Each structure stands twice: as structure tokens, then as C-alpha cells.
């Protein structure tokens, strides 16, 4: 009894300290990204500018049957936005901290390693939510898009989950590629993966060969799920998309873990 009463408060204190570490780590990571103008402006700016051009200016009030083209394209560009946030926020950010030796100092500190990963992931989610909200706002204000609150809530929920596969991809990228080439390679992955995943041009309009290739891309699965949130026509079954996202996540996580072990072994 006495040991229980003695250890309980200290266990509680350590638990609350750990929780505070996770919280602070996340807060400062988000703040750091927000203050890094080159990151914040490009990662929010690109999907916004693209959506304004292709979703609003070119296709304003355009309908195919009952489908609003502006709204249809919103699905693709929100996914485009969250992929950018995860890939650049985590991929380039982690590569930079790895190259600078900062990660080593963090690992030598008593910070729980999971807090670092958690902070990066949650910050990417926050940016994802920010981008999706801005795009929805633009669509509603200028594209005649209508979204009910439950639909918007489901979009946000999908964003939170959808960032994870790309966060893992960013980690794998950062651990494999030297910092100097990380931004370039991130772009080389980002843009083709967005096009081939049907984020810019509906997947049905792409050649058959590309459609069959798309099943290995998380961008494809996520955008099809986003279209389903709108109740718009999409390819494949819901289960196949979740399965695809899970597979992609596990693959990237496996690569990241292998790359991390390799780095640790060579350290």
C-alpha cells in the first residue's frame, strides 16, 4: 500500500512531464514551420494558386451532369496540398536536421524519440488542415462550391489520416537522401505522384496504363476517398483504397526503419 501511494504521484508526474514534452515539441515544430516563410508560403501557396487557376478561373460554375467541376477538383487539390505539407515539412525538415547534427543532439537528450516523430507528424496534419480549410473557403466563396458541415468534418478527418502515409514517405526520403538533394527529389516525387494519382486530371481520363499504375500510389487512393466524401463517382472500392493506403504506409515505414538502422549502424 505504502509503495503504491509513493510511486503513484511520481509516475503521474513523469506522465504529465512526458505529455508536456510531446505538446511542447509539437507546438515549437509547428511554430518553426510557420515562421519558415519559404516553407509556409510555398506549401500553402502552390495548391491555392493551382486551385484558383484550374478549379475556379477555368471551370467556374461549370457542371457535368450534377457534378460541380470546381468541387470535383477540390478533392484533388486538397490531397495535393496535404501531400506537400507532409513531404516537404517532414522530408526536407528531417533531412536538414539530420545533416546539421541536430537530430543527434535530440537523441542524446532525454526527449522520448516518439515525441520528435509525433511533433513532425502532427505539424504536418495541422498544415494539412490549414490548407484544406483555405481551399474549401476559396471554393465556397469563389467557385460556387457547397459543402455541408458534416461533409467538411469528414474531409478534415480524412486529412488527418491521409497525411500519415506521406509523413512516412517524407521520413523515408529524409533518411535515404542527403539533405542537399532532398528538396529536389521531394519535388521529383511530389509532382509526378500528384499527376499520376489523378489529382489534377480525373483518373478516368488518364490512359489505361496509367490507371493501372495508379493503384500503387497513395495519392490515387486518398483522392478517390475524398471524392466519395462528396458522393462523386470514383474508381475502386472503399476497402481497396484503405488497403492501398495501409500498404503504402507500411512500405514507407519499413523503408524508413531500414534506413534509420543503416544510419545508426554507420554512426
Amino acid at each position: 500500500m505504502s509503495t503504491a501511494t509513493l510511486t503513484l504521484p511520481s509516475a503521474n508526474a513523469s506522465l504529465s512531464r512526458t505529455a508536456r514534452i510531446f505538446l511542447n515539441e509539437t507546438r515549437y515544430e509547428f511554430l518553426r514551420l510557420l515562421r519558415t516563410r519559404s516553407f509556409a508560403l510555398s506549401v500553402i501557396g502552390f495548391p491555392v494558386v493551382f486551385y484558383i487557376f484550374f478549379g475556379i478561373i477555368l471551370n467556374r460554375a461549370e457542371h457535368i451532369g450534377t457534378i460541380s467541376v470546381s468541387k470535383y477538383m477540390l478533392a484533388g487539390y486538397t490531397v495535393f496540398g496535404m501531400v506537400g505539407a507532409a513531404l516537404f515539412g517532414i522530408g526536407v525538415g528531417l533531412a536538414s536536421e539530420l545533416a546539421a547534427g541536430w537530430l543527434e543532439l535530440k537523441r542524446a537528450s532525454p526527449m522520448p524519440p516518439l515525441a520528435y516523430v509525433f511533433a513532425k507528424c502532427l505539424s504536418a496534419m495541422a498544415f494539412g488542415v490549414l490548407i484544406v480549410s483555405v481551399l474549401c473557403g476559396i471554393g465556397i466563396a469563389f467557385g460556387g462550391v457547397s459543402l455541408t458541415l458534416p461533409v467538411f468534418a469528414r474531409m478534415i478527418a480524412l486529412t488527418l489520416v491521409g497525411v500519415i502515409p506521406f509523413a512516412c514517405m517524407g521520413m523515408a526520403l529524409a533518411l535515404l537522401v542527403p539533405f542537399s538533394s532532398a528538396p529536389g527529389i521531394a519535388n521529383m516525387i511530389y509532382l509526378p505522384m500528384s499527376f499520376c494519382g489523378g489529382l489534377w486530371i480525373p483518373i478516368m481520363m488518364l490512359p489505361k496504363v496509367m490507371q493501372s499504375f495508379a493503384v500503387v500510389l497513395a495519392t490515387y487512393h486518398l483522392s478517390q476517398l475524398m471524392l466519395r466524401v462528396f458522393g462523386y463517382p470514383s474508381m475502386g472500392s472503399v476497402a481497396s483504397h484503405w488497403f492501398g493506403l495501409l500498404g503504402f504506409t507500411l512500405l514507407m515505414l519499413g523503408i524508413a526503419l531500414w534506413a534509420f538502422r543503416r544510419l545508426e549502424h554507420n554512426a
Partner: protein
Amino acid sequence: MTSVLEQPIAVAATEAVASLNRITKRYANGVVALDDLSLSLHRGEIVALLGPNGAGKSTAVKLMMGLSAPTSGSVAIFGADPRNSQARLRTGVMLQVGRAPEMLRVREQVELFRGYYPNPMPYAELVKAAALEGIEERFFSQLSGGQKQRMLFALALAGDPDLIFLDEPTVGLDIEARRAMWATIRSLAARGKTVLLTTHYLEEADALAHRIVVIAKGKVVCSGTPAEVKSLGAGSATLAAVKIIRCVSSLPAETLLVSPGVVSAATVDGVTTITTSQPEATLREMLALDQTLHSLEVASPALEDAFLALTSS
């Protein structure tokens, strides 16, 4: 060549706070960074790991922090594995970091690291110890090289740790800031903290350390108090009586170099400097050859020379 001096008994009696036991570290590319190196740190002492670039100093620190695994041998920090979280809570480290997050303020980074520890050093005390007053609100990207170094120093002290590793702590600091950091390090040791610092500033090791461990090519060359290391340099077989002779003389360097025991001779701005292992013989010969020789000075080699002699062979 390896000659390790006896530890003072009082130090040897206390249990080691941290130790490297017969560590060999071979990197994947085949480079052997540490070769059968043993080192132990005791409570309240400042140990300087002294050596030229590439001697294995940083590797030793990384092994002690559990950032790198030894090829053979064992590491213990407070009797535990260095990756043990309890051991990490009692340890602070300053590594050679190229860049901290640039868009975070000094205050934010310090607060973040303080948050990792259950009993951190009070913020105001920490800012004072690392001389960060007045730059707390600056972003890391706005700091000068010396200020960056001081912030990293603050992060190492954030948890008020019992064991502190400082890898080249004073690189890029001006003399005043370096002396201020030395004072802080001394006061830490006075409070019973153990400090291991790596440096290639000989002056720093001499001024600061209770014990100097000279390493070269991953091996301990010698260790002891600064005075012992200096006398060891002067007392070793080849350097038995090495002295440095300075004088104003008309004798050309070529003549001096053939004289017995002379290691080096050069004349700069009219002053001839000769390093010799047989100073008496050299002096007798010089005085006989040059009647006009004046302004004679004979000196023992400084720690720097002893150190260079030890690590170059």
C-alpha cells in the same frame, strides 16, 4: 609508447561516473576511430580529451552518449547503458552541431530542453551561466557563431545534469567569452558535476582540466594532470632534455642543424630559434663559434610543444 600515469589515489577510490572499457570502434568504411581505448570519469573532475583533428575525440563522446555502438568493449554511464533514460536524465551534452532550428528563439529552445528534465536548472540561472542575457528573443539564425555556441552550452546545462559532455565547446568564442565559459565549467565541477570536454586548444586543457587525456589515432598516448603531461613530454626518452634556445647570432641555420642534438633551427627577424635535445652541447658549440652571440634565452617546451611531440610520433 603508451604510458599512463598512476591516478591519484583519492580519485581512483571513488566509483567511476562514466567509463569506456577497452573500446574499439571501427566504422563501416573500415576506419578505426578508437583502438582499445579505456577512459573513466570520476565525480567532480574536469577531464580534457586532447588530440588533433581525427584523433577520435568526438567518437568517444558519441559512444558515451549511446549515439554510436562500439565494435567491441563496453560503455557505462552511472553504471548503466548510455541509452538508459535514467542515465540520460542525469547527462547533458554539447555536440558539434552545424545548425539548430533556425526559426526558433533562444528562449524557446532553452525552455524546450529544460522541459525534458524533472529538475531543470532555473531559467534565469541558465541564461546567466551561458551568458545569453539580451539575446534571448533572437532567432537562432540571427546569432553570431559564438552566440550559437553559447546557446548549445545552455542546452547542455538545461537539466542541471551531473555529467556533462562538451565537444569542442569554445570553438568560435572570443577570448572573453571563452574565459566566461571556463569559469562556468569550473563552478560546475566545484558543485560536484563531472565534465568531459574535448579540445584541441592546449591552453584550454591546461587552464581548465584536472586531468588531461591525450589521444592520437584512437589510442591514449598519455594521461595525467596538466603538469604531469607536460613533464612527461619533457621526460620521455627522445625528448629527454629538449630545450628551446633563442638568441641573436650570425650563425646560419645550416651550420646549427648539423650540430649534435639540434632538431630544428630557424632565424626569423634576426632572432634564431633552436630546438635541441642536447642543450649544453649545442650552447657550448654556438658560444665558441660566435663571439658576438647575445640576448640568449633557454626555455622548456610549453605544453603545446610537449603535446605536439607526443602526438606526432
